[in-house]
């Protein structure tokens, strides 16, 4: 029986495990869908989809080793991952010269580029959603002096810079404060920075951290607006911060659960894993849907150059998240960034309600 193996390259241990599991789940679901119908039909043949996952332990050297193993040892051409920015950057040469199609979660702008014609990003990053959301928020809340707390790591630093620029464009000033990753007590920093702020930006933090900061800020008596322009934080954050503290907070909503396909995915995840879904998971599912479409269209499962060219040309592909295509030519020099709508929500009475729908250009 013929088969195609998809590699999953992510950090299954350590604090990023939830993301990795989301990526694996997406691959699992995508494979299940196809295999259920007897395999992926390409050029008259049916290919069963197999999965091979490797842990990179969130280290660059391990990432290279794991990627080598996927490519050389296992002869894999399609990889879901790498997950972290360091891993994405460190394996870029490898995957490019090996012509391996990758679908990364890395937020770094350097994960994509003309020098990496096989690297795709099926998730929406700060680079995409920051500008339109911030513009909308600044207009709707009239915040002028916003402060932001971010972890001092690659994601934090990246988001800090992106948000700073977006706020500047929207006519507001953002002051970014970084803290060590392990920190759980924010009272000292908040005491200082909240003194003259009229807005608190928490985008880029993990849901729990965002919740903690929010709770501690409210305890210190902060009453101004709070934005979380990034991630899929609402549910967790609500739990950590409590209903009262979270009231009125604006959050980024990556998915719209009123779409039936999306809702189905959420249910499927919960049923299989018994955990709440990681917000990024369905994007990889959508990305794989696009990849499989491209394989069928290109009528090959080996010639990655041909598949990539075909994939580049896809637009309006129906996925679980709505119709998807590629964007990013302007920003990254290559059209490998997924193009999907995203949303702004607000927490009211412990429930998140959608208040705006956005694309790369604007929110409405």
């Amino acid at each position, binding site marked *: 029986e013929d088969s195609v193996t998809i590699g999953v390259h992510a950090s299954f241990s350590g604090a990023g495990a939830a993301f990795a599991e989301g990526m694996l789940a997406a691959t699992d679901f995508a494979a299940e869908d196809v295999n259920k119908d007897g395999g992926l039909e390409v050029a008259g043949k049916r290919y069963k989809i197999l999965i091979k996952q*490797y842990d990179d332990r969130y280290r660059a050297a391990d990432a290279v080793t794991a990627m080598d193993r996927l490519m*050389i040892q296992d002869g894999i051409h399609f990889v879901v991952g790498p997950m972290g920015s360091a891993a994405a950057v*460190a394996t870029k040469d490898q995957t490019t010269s090996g012509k391996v199609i990758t679908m990364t979660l890395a937020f770094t702008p350097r994960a994509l580029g003309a020098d990496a014609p096989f690297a795709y990003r099926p998730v929406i990053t700060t680079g995409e959603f920051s500008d339109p959301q911030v513009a909308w928020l600044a207009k709707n809340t009239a915040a002028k002096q916003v402060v932001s707390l971010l972890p001092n790591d690659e994601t934090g630093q990246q988001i800090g810079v992106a948000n700073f620029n977006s706020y500047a464009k929207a006519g507001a000033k953002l002051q970014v404060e970084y803290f060590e990753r392990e920190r759980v007590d924010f009272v000292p920093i908040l005491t200082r920075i909240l003194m003259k702020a009229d807005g608190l930006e928490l985008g880029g933090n993990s849901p729990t951290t965002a919740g903690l900061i929010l709770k501690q800020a409210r305890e210190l008596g902060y009453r101004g607006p709070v934005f979380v322009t990034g991630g899929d934080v609402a549910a967790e954050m609500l739990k950590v911060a409590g209903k009262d503290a979270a009231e009125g907070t604006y959050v980024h909503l990556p998915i719209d659960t009123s779409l039936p396909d999306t809702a189905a995915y959420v249910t499927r995840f919960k049923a299989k894993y018994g955990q709440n879904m990681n917000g990024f998971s369905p994007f990889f599912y959508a990305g794989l849907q696009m990849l499989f479409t491209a394989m069928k269209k290109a009528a090959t499962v080996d010639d990655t150059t041909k598949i990539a060219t075909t994939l580049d040309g896809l637009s309006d592909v129906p996925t679980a998240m709505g119709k998807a295509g590629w964007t990013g030519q302007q920003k990254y020099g290559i059209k490998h960034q997924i193009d999907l709508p995203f949303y702004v929500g607000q927490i009211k009475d412990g429930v998140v309600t959608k208040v705006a729908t956005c694309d790369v250009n604007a929110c409405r």
Partner: protein
Amino acid sequence: MNPSTTKPMSYVAVAVAVFLAVLLPWFAPNQFYIHLATVGCINLMLVLGLAIIARAGQLSMGHGGFALVGGYVSALLSMKGWPPLLTLFIAGLTAAVIAAALGWIILRLRGVYFVLVAFAFSQIVVLLALDMSSITGGANGLVGVPPISIFGCVLRAKPQFYPFALACALTTLLLTWLLYRSPLGTMMAATAENQRLTESSGIDTHRVQVIAFTIGSGIAGFAGALSTHYLRFISPDSYTFWESVSYLTMLVVGGRDGVLGPVVGVLVLTPLPELLRSTEGLQHIIYGTMLVLCLMFVPNGLASLVQTWRSRQRVARTSAAVVAEEVT
């Protein structure tokens, strides 16, 4: 004064091992094995560095910090156009100088205290790498570190890089072996075992320890740089607490005495994660269990099995001699 007197047999074994290592690119089924071997060579250097420090009676949990320093120094200089072959050595030297200064202060600490402070140092290095983003690229690290080139030959691909890494590792191994046999090595061992007594034999034990720390950390700096030019990338996450722990693990699992221990530790523990890489969370449980079992049942490291056998022979010999003496 090492009890392990080298016999012709061991020389033959060493020659065979080196020969096999050199031939690896020819019989490896694919390049992945060469990659593993290269990582093994780099690990060996790091573990040998740690072993030298341990020889003088201290354990460094900040070893990764020095590798990180070395990696950044070499990356930054070579990106400015300096030849990587030179910056490797500058990296080692820089790490050594920092180690000498730090060691001079903190080596008055004993045992666990030293471990903890060295560890704190490595945390600071990571923090500085994160904070000084204008120089170090912050959390994103430095991409596009130039490859090493020797006489116009650019070591970009694995089969080209491996011989160089192997040469570096073997040289380190040889120097370490010579060091252990030298008076300085003996002084280190003596210091480790009874510092007060060594001091009263006229040996400046503080200096001996600082030298050991400097050499060991210098090697770490060099190895960190080597790895950076191999991966062509470095970030603050490249050498964290867990890296320092894993070198320590290799040293302990292999054995702390002599140069055989580090070699065994690296040979066992470099490929081990590969066996477990696709088992998700289970791999760390298995790894942890193996580590604990190893410590429980071969507490002096796998290499000590050889030594135990040797010393059993020694006791047998001595008691025979004593009996003979008493009989006559």
